[in-house]
Each structure stands twice: as C-alpha cells, then as structure tokens.
C-alpha cells in the first residue's frame, strides 16, 4: 500500500523559505536568514529521503493530483505531481546537492551585502527545479522550466551593478528563450496530435505507434523541437554560448544551477520523453550528434581557458554533451547515471574552485595561482577527488558513468564507432585540461602577488568590497564550506559504485516497460554483443586515455612549464582561434545580433514606430494645435469685434431666411 507522499509539499517548502526571506529577510540577521533557507531546503531533502525510505512499499509511478487547472473541451491540464524512479533520482540530486550548496553558500556569501537576497533566489530556484522534476505533465514542467530560467537570470546577474554580470544574465535569459521557443512549439504539436500533455496519457497514446522510418513524421518533429528546448537549457550546440558567461554569478550558483541541476533539465526532459524519441530515429540521431559534437567542441575550448571557472564551465558543457550522446544512442538510463555522478563531481569541483578563489582573495586566473597544495589541504584533496572523478579514473564515479556511455555508444543499435571514437578523444582532452587545471592551481610555485594584494575579490567592485578579507595570505575556507566539499567528495568517490547494470535495472520500469518500448529496441538491447569488444576492454582503454591525459598535463605543466607557451606560439593561429572560443560569439554577433539590431533600429524603430505610429499621433496633435491656434484669435477680448461677429452671424441668418423664403 502506497502511503500518501504529499509530493506537492516538496516544491512548496523552498518556496515558503523564499517568501519568508524575500519579504522579511532585510530585517533578519544573517544567522536567521541562513536558518530559514536551510530549514526549508533541508525539509525538502528530508521529505525526499523519507520517500526513499518508503521505497519498498511504493507502487511507482505514483501520481498525485492537487487541483484542476485548465479545462478546454476534452483537453485538460491539472496541477499534478508524478513520481517514478527517474524523478526520484532527480529529486535526490536536486535536494541533496542543493542542500549542500546552501550550507556552503552560508560561508561563501557571508560578507555579501545582499545575503538574504541570495538565499531568496536560491530557494526560489529550488522551488522551480523541484516543480520541473516532479511535474506530471509538460505544462507544469514548462512552469518549472521557465522558473529555473528566471532564477538563473537573477542569480547570474546577482552582482548586477557589474556590467558584465548584468549582460551575462540577459544573455543567458535570451539564449534560453530561443530554446524555449522550440519547446513550446513541440508542446503545441503534442496537443494538436495527441490532445494531451499528461505524461501517462501521452506516452500511452504514443506507445502503440511504430517507429518512424524514412522521412520525417510528427514524432520526429516533436523530438527535434524538444531537443531545441533541451539544447537551450542544457547548453548544447548551437545554444551553449550562455553558460560560460554565466560564470559571472557567485560560485555556489555556478555549482548548483550551471553544473549540478538546472543544466541537466534538458537531459531529464529528453529522458522523460524517451517514448517519443525511441520512435523517431532521426530525432535520436540529432540528439546524439549534437551531444557528441558539443562534448568534443567544448572540451577543446576548455584546454585554452585560463580562468578556473571558465575551464569548469566548458567542461560542464562537454559533460552535458556526453549525457546527450547517451540519450541519443538510446541509453537514457546511462545519461541519467552520468547526470547523477556529474552532479556530484561537478558540484564538488565548482565548490572547490570557489574555495580556491576564496583562498586567494578573489583571483580566478590560474596563471596567478600555483603551489596551493599545502596551503589549503582540504580544498586540495577534495578537488583532487573531483578531478580524478571527472577524468574517469577507476574507481571514482566519473569512470563508471562515462565508461558506460562510451560502451553503449559503441554497442547500442543506434550507436556507431564514430560516437565512441569522438567520445574517447573527448575523454582524453577532458582528462588533460582537468589535470592542467589541477597542476596549475595546486603545484609549482605560487605565482600570485604576496600578501595584501588580494583585497580585490571578484565581487570587490560591486558593492561589497569587504568580502572576507580582513586577513593576509592564502587561507583555508571555514568549516561551513569544507564540510559540503567533503560530503560531495565522498559521493564523487563512491557514487559510481552502484554500477551501470544496477542503475539500469533500477530505471528499467521507466525506460523499458514492456508496453512502452517498441519491440525492436528490446531485441537490440539483448543482442548488444554483436562481436563488439567487451566492456572491460573498453574500460581499460578509457582509463588508459585518462592516464595519458594526466601524464601529458604533468609533462606540460610540471615537468617543463615553458613548453605550453612554445606550443601555443608555434601554432598561434589555431591557439588563438581556440582560446577565442572559435569566435562563435563574434560569429553570432555578425550573423544574428547585428542584423537584428539594425533591422530593429532602422526599420522598426525609425521606420515603423517613429515614421508611422508616432507620426500619426504627432501629426493629429499638431493639426489640433494649429486649428486651435487659428481659432484662438477670435477671442480677442475686443468688445466691438464680438459685436461684429454677432452682427455678421445675424446677417448670415437673415440672408439665409430670406433665401429660404424666396426659394
């Protein structure tokens, strides 16, 4: 018997926290603000944990309708929440990592003038993210989808007095609009074709349909449009450009929103819609190609970045590419597996990077770091775990999930050796740039300025120059920041031990229920071993590749630190192109923004708005003015002229009467 889970309470708890802090936070002291934020996000985590503890007695999927919402003929949408294994995992990731980052933020943001505002936004984000995850239909999901976009905008532009932060927030918001447009069109297509947005009903209606082969059917169109939405939210080609800029936000935001949770919403949405994608091979191929390209492309940019957070940003884009690659080859559960492990280790890496930035007083340029290993041991060791995990070295979490994705990319019926090869190459590059970062930050000599030089925190020039630097020298972060790091490090270490097999089995009710997946897929799954190399062999190869990346990074950044400079100058053209992110931002500026701005200004503003609309109004106003000005002079104040007008009027009247009489 399934107990009443009160799913609606989970998103609502952080919303209450956001409301209390948002309305009253200004009068609260910092401990009260943090207590409110922690209690409500902690309550959501507790409830999620309680649901897990009830797992054995649950009959999933569990549906809870709170209230009816839209009723239009046969089409209806309810406020309803939906829990199955997939949303359960997302629930744990969001509340768990979210709660840890809340704790961390208390330490990181303590000196900030807008302390309460930060936690308001953070709780608001949790509300929307949990709505997204627990939605039982696409429309509720869309509410969460837009809401996380909003909170992301607010948090990226948190230090809004800084121009670049405000601009980055706007960029993220606008680029996301493009993706949301695709998502919305997909929803309209779904309504038109199936007449429902409810997951259960929709997938029930889709299930009997066969695979769309040859040509493009409506499912393919829906799939591709959904992928456009996912590409916007999850920063995939061609809409990834907002994520690196989003690093303008405070580091805990980068960890929570732009690494662990929000950006994975696209992966979640694609996985949730797997019934549609499985019947649209072309859409699946689009997903896989976009994912693979993004993974590789972003990784190469990551190699040349000097900003510690930018490296992690591109690495996030790249890892999200892996997840889409997994979804694209039909291995949705592996995508979600990587989503989970990635949430652990990327959240850890960002928080550790924040700790490093905190330690060196706001410096983000890795060229000015180095030798921090002994000075901030906790940060160093936790970051080491994160780095080894993302590089995919056994037995850390990243190894299991990445390896599973590569294996499926090669053996799945939708897979191809190309995906595998690019994925492997990307794994090598990932390992290289992550260890490059590791070496540059923690090894060698400290290259930053000595004491006194770090009162200039990244936030120094926006309203709170007192960011925790009443001290000199590099120093370890307070315990409130270290504890979440340690917990995440443990999770990054052990998170993969679940193993892809067991994870797959856990998610099987979602992805492989008999009436859900078309028969061909099931056959393909069981017949996976078509003479392909075994998983363990591939695992050895990918670990080898990761170790080679480690070795190369060591060679270049520890053994002979001058070599990278020489390599960069010997291939200066290529290096410059890559370090300028392939000039993609400039390209978009030329192709999209410039024409848009000039059309808006010259045609719509100067032409239509000023020329037609304003001109009509101004013209009529001016006409009225002119007429009044003429008529005004009749009121001369001269008595005799009034009399003259009366006499003239009387004369006209008389003549008129006479004319009438003689006619």
């Amino acid at each position, binding site marked *: 018997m399934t107990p009443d889970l009160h799913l609606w309470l989970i998103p609502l708890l952080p919303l209450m926290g956001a409301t209390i802090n948002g309305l009253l936070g200004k009068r609260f002291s910092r401990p009260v603000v943090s207590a409110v934020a922690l209690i409500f996000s902690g309550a959501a985590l507790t409830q999620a944990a309680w649901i897990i503890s009830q797992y054995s007695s649950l009959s999933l999927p569990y549906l809870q309708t709170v209230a009816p919402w839209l009723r239009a003929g046969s089409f209806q949408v309810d406020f309803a929440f939906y829990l199955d294994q997939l949303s359960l995992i997302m629930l744990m990731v969001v509340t768990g990592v979210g709660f840890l980052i809340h704790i961390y933020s208390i330490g990181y943001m303590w000196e900030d003038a807008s302390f309460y505002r930060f936690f308001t936004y953070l709780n608001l984000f949790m509300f929307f993210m949990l709505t997204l995850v627990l939605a039982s239909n696409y429309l509720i999901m869309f509410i969460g989808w837009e809401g996380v976009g909003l909170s992301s905008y607010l948090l990226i532009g948190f230090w809004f007095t800084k121009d670049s932060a405000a601009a980055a927030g706007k960029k993220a918001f606008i680029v996301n609009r493009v993706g949301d447009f695709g998502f919305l069109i997909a929803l309209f297509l779904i309504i038109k074709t199936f007449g429902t947005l409810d997951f259960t009903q929709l997938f029930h209606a889709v299930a009997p349909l066969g695979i769309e082969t040859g040509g493009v059917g409506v499912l393919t169109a829906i799939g591709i449009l959904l992928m456009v939405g996912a590409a916007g939210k999850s920063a995939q080609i061609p809409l990834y450009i907002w994520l690196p800029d989003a690093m303008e936000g405070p580091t805990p935001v980068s960890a929570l929103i732009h690494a662990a949770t929000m950006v994975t919403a696209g992966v979640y949405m694609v996985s949730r819609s797997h019934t549609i994608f499985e019947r649209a091979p072309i859409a699946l191929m689009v997903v896989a190609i976009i994912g693979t390209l993004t993974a590789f492309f972003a990784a190469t940019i990551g190699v040349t970045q000097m900003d510690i957070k930018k490296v992690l940003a591109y690495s996030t884009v790249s890892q999200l590419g892996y997840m889409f690659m997994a979804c694209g080859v039909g291995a949705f559960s592996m995508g979600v597996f990587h989503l989970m492990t990635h949430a652990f280790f990327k959240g850890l890496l960002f928080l550790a990077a924040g700790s490093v930035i905190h330690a060196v007083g706001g410096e983000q340029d890795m060229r000015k770091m180095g030798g921090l290993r002994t000075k901030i041991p906790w940060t160093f060791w936790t970051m080491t775990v994160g780095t080894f995990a993302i590089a995919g070295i056994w037995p850390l979490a990243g190894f299991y999930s990445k390896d599973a994705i590569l294996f499926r990319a090669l053996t799945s019926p939708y897979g191809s050796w190309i995906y595998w090869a690019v994925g492997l190459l990307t794994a090598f590059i990932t390992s290289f740039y992550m260890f490059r970062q590791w070496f540059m930050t923690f090894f060698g000599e400290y290259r930053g300025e000595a004491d006194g030089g770090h009162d200039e925190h990244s936030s120094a020039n926006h309203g709170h120059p007192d960011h925790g630097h009443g001290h000199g020298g590099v120093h370890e972060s307070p315990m409130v920041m270290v504890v979440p790091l340690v917990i995440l490090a443990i999770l990054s270490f052990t998170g993969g031990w679940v193993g892809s097999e067991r994870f797959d089995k856990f998610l099987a009710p979602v992805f492989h229920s008999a009436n859900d997946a078309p028969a061909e897929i099931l056959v393909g799954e069981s017949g996976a071993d078509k003479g392909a190399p075994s998983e363990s062999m591939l695992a050895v190869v990918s670990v080898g590749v990761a170790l080679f990346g480690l070795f190369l990074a060591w060679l270049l950044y520890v053994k002979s630190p001058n070599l990278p400079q020489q390599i960069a100058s010997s291939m200066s053209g290529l290096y410059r192109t890559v370090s300028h992110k392939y000039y993609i931002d400039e390209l978009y500026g030329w192709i999209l923004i410039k024409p848009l701005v000039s059309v808006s200004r010259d045609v719509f503003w100067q032409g239509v708005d000023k020329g037609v609309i304003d001109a009509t109004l101004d013209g009529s106003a001016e006409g009225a003015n002119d007429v009044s000005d003429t008529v*005004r002079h009749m*009121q001369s*104040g*001269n*008595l*005799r002229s009034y009399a003259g007008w009366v*006499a003239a009027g009387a004369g006209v009247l008389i003549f008129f009467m006479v004319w009438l009489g003689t006619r």
Partner: protein
Amino acid sequence: MIPLSFYLILSGILFACGVAGFLIKRNIITIFMSIELMLNGVNLSFVAFAAQWHELRGQIFVFFVMVVAAAEAAVGLAIIIAVYRTRETLNVDQVNLLKL
C-alpha cells in the same frame, strides 16, 4: 393712413443705425445709447404691427421692453461708472480683460 412699410423701414433704419453705432463707436456711453436705439427700433416695429392688426399684445411687449431697458440702463450706467473709476477711461478697446 401711413402704410405699414414706412414704419418698418424707419424701424429698420433705426436698428441699423444702432448696430453701426455699436460697432463703430469706442465710447461706452455712445455704445450704450446705440443699444437703446436698437431697442427703440424694434419697439417701433412692435407698435406698428399692433396698430396694423388691432392687437394689444404688441403694445404690451413694448412696455416690457421699456421696463427691461430702464433696468438695463440703471445697471449699465452703474457698470460704466465702476469701469470709469477703475480704468479711468471709457474706451472699450482698452477694456479688454476678457481676452485670452
């Protein structure tokens, strides 16, 4: 018997003189007298018609007009005196405070 038209023509001439005087003259008292002239022009046509049709109503109307004219004369002269006291002039062109 003098025909009706003679009276009416005289009445019209009187009225026209009044109008012309009203429009041309600048002195308020002259204007005031022009108004009286117009009223009397009209009175003349009233009595002429009353005599023509053996009707009393025309005569009564004339009495009314005379009463109103007397009252108007009283009020009007008072205003003229007030204007003269404040403005020290009786030229209407200089009494134009109603202008915009």
